[in-house]
């Protein structure tokens, strides 16, 4: 037993020596925000048969913190409509890498996925519908007016060769059914 005690004492001394390499510091300012969850009815925009966006309501458990809820709402949009007859607007492998709420009604959504990375071969209508489904979904559920879309964390000119997303997008009256 004394030999075991000696071993433990040696290891403790080792840990103490390693710890000494790191300067004592106060508890970091980086504290995770308390993610209080609340049920919330949100509107997700999908394409209707007349080729315009219409809202679909969905009850979700979301963080009360708006900024934290943002990426979950985008992820919900990417899942597609609850109506299986309504096709997805974004490619099926699209993922949300992050979504950030900025001051003055600005938001940044970082998308990823193989199709968007390799080049999305689609027409302007689909691209418009996809981009504006994101913009209208965010502006309908948050105090957001302008949405900047990134792909893989980087600014890109377009998603599929048409709609300029190297600048923030505003909601478009032409894209939504009135």
């Amino acid at each position, binding site marked *: 037993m004394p030999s075991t005690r000696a*071993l*433990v004492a040696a290891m403790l001394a080792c840990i103490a020596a390693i710890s000494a390499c790191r300067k004592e510091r106060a508890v970091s*300012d980086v504290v995770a925000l308390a993610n209080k969850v609340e049920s919330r009815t949100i509107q997700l925009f999908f394409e209707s048969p007349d080729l315009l966006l219409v809202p679909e309501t969905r009850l979700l458990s979301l963080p009360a913190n708006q900024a934290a809820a943002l990426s979950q709402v985008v992820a919900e949009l990417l899942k597609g409509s609850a109506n299986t007859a309504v096709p997805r607007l974004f490619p099926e492998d699209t993922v949300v890498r992050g979504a950030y709420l900025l001051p003055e009604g600005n938001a940044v959504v970082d998308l990823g996925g193989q199709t968007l990375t390799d080049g999305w071969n689609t027409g302007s209508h689909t691209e418009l519908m996809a981009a504006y489904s994101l913009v209208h979904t965010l502006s309908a559920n948050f105090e957001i007016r302008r949405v*900047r879309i990134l792909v893989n964390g980087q600014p890109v000119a377009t998603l599929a*060769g048409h709609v300029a997303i190297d600048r923030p997008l505003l909601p*478009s009256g032409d894209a939504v059914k009135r």
Partner: protein
Amino acid sequence: MGVPGVGAMKRVLVVLLVLLAVATLVLAQGIGRATVRTPNGDREVMTIQQRGETLLAADETIAAFGGRITAEGEGFRIALGAMEAIFGPDSRFAVVRDDLIEMAQEPVVIEGRAFLPSGFFRELIPRASGLDVTWDPASRLLLARPRTREVLSAQVSVVDLQGTTKIVIQFSGAAEHTITRTGTSYLIQLRNTVRAPFAEQAYDNPRVSRITFRDGEIGIHLRGAAVAGDAYELQNPFRIVLDLKEAPEGSPAYRPQLRTEPRFQQTLPGVRTIVLDPGHGGKEVGAIGPNGLMEKDATLAICRKLAAVLSSRLGLRVILTRNEDEAITLEQRTALANHYKADLFLSVHLNAAVMKGARGAETYFLSVEASDELARSAAERENLTPSGSRSRAGSDLNLILWELAQQEYLKESSRFAEIVQEEMNRALGIENRGVKQAPFKVLIGATMPAALVEVGFITNPDEEAKLLDEGFQGTIASTLASAIERYKTEYDVRMGVGGARVAAPAPAGAGDPAAAEPERTSGR
């Protein structure tokens, strides 16, 4: 106290080994210290080494500048004075308002603390303070010093156009400033030292009486209190622009402005040159039909046919952005049209939709918000060459005229799109999906009326079959030619040029679609 059992000892050993493993892992990141030196003193911050780069603990570094960082979802938010920045663990880009800072590598998060490359702080701190930041890897010192401001020279132009007085003050470098209104003057207070072009200059202008340079302050003195201003900055070269107009109706001094002759006439004497843009090309195939038709092939075939009709029927100079299967950036397409000083730009595409049964043609012109943003950054876009490189920005007067012309281009683009859509509806008997506006990249920056036509849905098997047919492609080309002819007639009459059939000199080679390919010396 009894001797602990063998089981208890084993558990202690396991815990200690785990602790050792964690400690070793942390040490493997190459933990060290660095100094952040600000005018308020020194602060030691933790650093890690990764891929040869020193990453500084964001919380301690930001705290040294009086800011704080909070975790937000998977990302972090930095608040530094009035400025906020956001970054995440997987992206090299941090968002600062609607701008981005690119980092040398992704942030590293250890135990909930973010570590960022020193370059990030070099970019961020000057945006939030009057400090310039340097990083010395040898002494591991992040040094923040009050910015040394260069002495700037300034030039002033005052132009009165269409009910607006534009005052453009151009500097030799970025001028930190604040603008305030006091009574009948706007005061621009400069933090830089500026070599004044004059002490005082009087102007024969309906809204501005004189401009003064005095003790780091530029005074813009108005003729009355009923003049309202809108100030903004333009870059490359740095300019402060002040737009002055009469105050809104209802104010005692309101005076409606009479429009003068159409300014569009100054830049577009008539439609003589048209740039046709076959959508996509090369690796960018565009949309693909259910039976394999590729958008890039159909758009090229239609544009070649259209070029032939336009050259022979209207004698127009026709330029194709591409005359073979090749990839060209969207910016290059527009820049090519600007370079050749085209009078009209038409981008031809085939549409795609996820909804079954989508059919018909639709025509787009640029949406207003994209156009507004464009006008604000006019200086960066003017004189763009086909390769996308920038040549020297033009004169202030050119800039002002360019901005004003954008509004006219939009009106003309709207009319052009309307005519294209009407002709498509009339001739092709396909569903009318109307004229719409969208922020299409290829239309942004075009300094001429511009539209994008979607001639049909490639995703619809019926329309795909038609679009594959050479005869139908010819019909589309003929229809688009009729639309262009109609627009040209209307426009030329409005501009007093003399009608659609006015002999516009056809350049050598026009008439042969193959010969319609422009000379391209760069960007290819």
